[in-house]
């Protein structure tokens, strides 16, 4: 084998026997496109079976996660700069009025909470799909160039002077879609179609190039930079009522993701194995990529680029319920919003009367979690 002959060397199937080739794999300038470790299909397969005896513990975890999410929602409705008692929140919920309390609950906290629910579940599930599809524990939803594409589109919109409320939402979605399409086409060139590793490489390269263009636009126009720096941090206060507009998109993405969950389990056994088990790889890859585009695109539209949630949530789900994607998916859909909302609540409390954007909190809090995961040897071998 021609060692290190090109960047695409990394794209060699991971079950190559060579230790060097095992390490060689993609990792671009974005978190989440990192080297694929040596896959260890065999132990994983046994763990799938071994876990099935723990069905009850899985159910218990699922129930606790639902409880955690409920608690996070409650906190998100109660905590804020404007003092409202839990009772006040309740009465505002049952009898909408025009007082300050009602305004705060209905027009600040509920939109914020809904944004968190939608964006969190989308990010969690998109991350799980990406990790399953690429068999890469560091894959996140940003891998298809989605955040980069959305950023460039939003910067262009700002520079062109689009200021209509919610106007940036659709620019973001168009940018995300265009980037994903480009990455997919580039990644599908050549033999073997759109393999995960080729996708990851193409995503990393596109992210770098598009990121530079974004930088140039912002540096040439100070006013655009002034606005863009606020877009670049993820936030749940952006979308308001418009958030619900992407609801259908998000729902389709969730359905697709859940539909491919079973196939991701067989892909985890290795591509040859999956093929011999009758999995139609091309169809699964296309469906999975479309679901990631819809989910991550919707999340970016609602909240902007949010670090780490898509990466970390599937790992936590995996720790709780084992490697079965039919469980990881729904659990990620619950854990994602729970963690995002908790981070948002923390952001409201930490620097009062100012507030920290949720993207900053998830990045700062998610980092240590991620390092912990990396230091556990098992994770590197997922």
């Amino acid at each position, binding site marked *: 084998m021609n060692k290190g002959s090109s960047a695409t060397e990394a794209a060699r199937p991971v079950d190559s026997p060579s230790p060097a080739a095992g390490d060689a794999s993609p990792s671009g300038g974005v978190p989440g496109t990192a080297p694929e470790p040596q896959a260890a299909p065999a132990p994983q397969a046994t763990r799938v079976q071994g876990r099935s005896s723990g069905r009850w513990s899985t159910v218990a975890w699922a129930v606790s996660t639902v409880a955690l999410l409920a608690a996070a929602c409650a906190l998100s409705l109660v905590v*804020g*700069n*404007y*003092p409202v008692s839990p009772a006040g929140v309740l009465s505002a919920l049952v009898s909408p009025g*025009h*007082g*300050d309390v009602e*305004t*705060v609950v*209905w*027009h*600040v906290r509920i*939109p914020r909470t809904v944004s968190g629910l939608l964006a969190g579940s989308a990010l969690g599930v998109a991350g799980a799909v990406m990790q399953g599809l690429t068999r890469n524990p560091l894959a996140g939803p940003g891998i298809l160039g989605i955040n980069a594409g959305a950023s460039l589109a939003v910067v262009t919109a*700002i520079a062109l002077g689009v*200021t209509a*409320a919610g106007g*940036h939402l659709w620019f973001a979605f168009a940018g995300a879609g265009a980037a994903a399409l480009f990455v997919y086409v580039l990644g599908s060139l050549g033999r073997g179609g759109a393999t995960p590793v080729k996708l990851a490489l193409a995503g990393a390269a596109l992210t770098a190039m598009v990121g530079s263009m974004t930088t140039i636009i912002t540096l*040439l*126009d*100070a*006013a655009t930079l*002034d*606005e*863009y720096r*606020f*877009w670049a*941090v993820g*936030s*749940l*206060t*952006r*979308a*308001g*009522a418009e958030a619900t507009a992407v609801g259908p998109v998000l729902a389709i993405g969730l359905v697709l993701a859940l539909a491919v969950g079973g196939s991701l389990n067989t892909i985890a056994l290795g591509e040859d194995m999956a093929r011999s088990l009758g999995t139609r790889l091309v169809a699964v890859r296309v469906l999975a990529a479309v679901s990631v585009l819809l989910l991550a695109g919707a999340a970016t539209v609602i909240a*902007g680029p949010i670090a780490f949630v898509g990466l970390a949530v599937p790992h936590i789900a995996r720790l709780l319920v084992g490697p079965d994607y039919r469980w990881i998916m729904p659990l990620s859909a619950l854990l994602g919003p729970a963690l995002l909302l908790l981070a948002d609540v923390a952001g*409201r409390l930490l620097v009062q*009367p*100012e*507030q920290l*954007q949720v993207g900053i909190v998830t990045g700062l809090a998610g980092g240590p979690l991620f390092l912990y995961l990396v230091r556990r040897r098992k994770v590197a071998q997922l």
Partner: protein
Amino acid sequence: MSLPLRRRRDSFTLRRRRTITLRRRRHPVLRRRRNPGAIVSLFAAVLVAATACAPPPPDSASAEGGAISRTNCGIDVSVADPPQRIYAAYQPAIELAHALGVSDRIVGTAFLDAKVLPEYADRQADVDYVPSLPSREALLQKKPDFVLSGFNGFFAEQSADSSVGTRASLRGVGVQSWILSPLCPSEDGLTDQSIDPATVKVENIYRDLRDLGALFGVEDKADAVIADMRQRIAAVEKQVADAERPSVAIVSPNEDGSYSIASGIDFGSHIIERAGGTNAFADLSRKRNIDVGAEELVKRDPDVILTDACCDASMTEQDARPEVDAILRDPALSGVTAVQDRAVHPFLFADRSAGVRAAHSIELVASVLHPALVD
């Protein structure tokens, strides 16, 4: 190279050059360097750059009678003859130069936050303007003899971008400089602020006007500008003296759904006070602009909201309309008194900078706070 050695050397030349006057020298571009130095090849040049980057020794001109000198941010600025090639960067500096009537001496302007006031529009149309700050060599290409800046970062030390070098280094090539005094850094080359913004009053602007008037040889014009500003502001203050003081917030909606507001130490707060109002966020003093959520605005419930539109050389108060509409339409703010009374008014970031605009801004704010009292 040892750093301390270079430091000593710099301060040495700095002390010598501080006394340079312009009259005794030919224009720096025409002047030949005295000491050719020993650089004969690129390699040697590289070595020199790596070891000392020794500037050529300055001309041994010394200050004599007739030179006018003023102190700005702790630095002596002396000119023998009024500067004839002025470069102005940032809104307040550009407007101040026009106000002093030296527009025909301006060789370049850069970085406006908004359209200059109508009375300067014709003059600004005639001078060279670039939206981005120039590099050092682009500045020197304009052959300025005086650089006036509305922000200290323009003279930041090396390794900072959008800087043309320290004021000492500019003086080394015969260019005098001035920072509008509310933004004085604690030392040449830094970008901090040695003056507590909370103490910045219109009087600081008068002092800059007086000093620059003297240096530019237009004392009478400077006195006239000051008198005009004094008179206009005093008139407003008299009109609103006995009125109730509504609470006012300067609010800019951020892209992420938060709001940037002007705190108690911002000059905007001073403008509101003079115009007969109080800043709803006056108690916050950590920085000039603070980001808050909608809930904080609901809690503070300002009676009047001023927008904070920014940053384009063609921007006028009319261009702040979209911000006004965005605030009026925001359901989260629907309960705020200012929104209910539709007391949300267009205002510009440039309007709250400490410059000759202050009179205009105080009149503008007073007219929206007290429409019945102010004409």
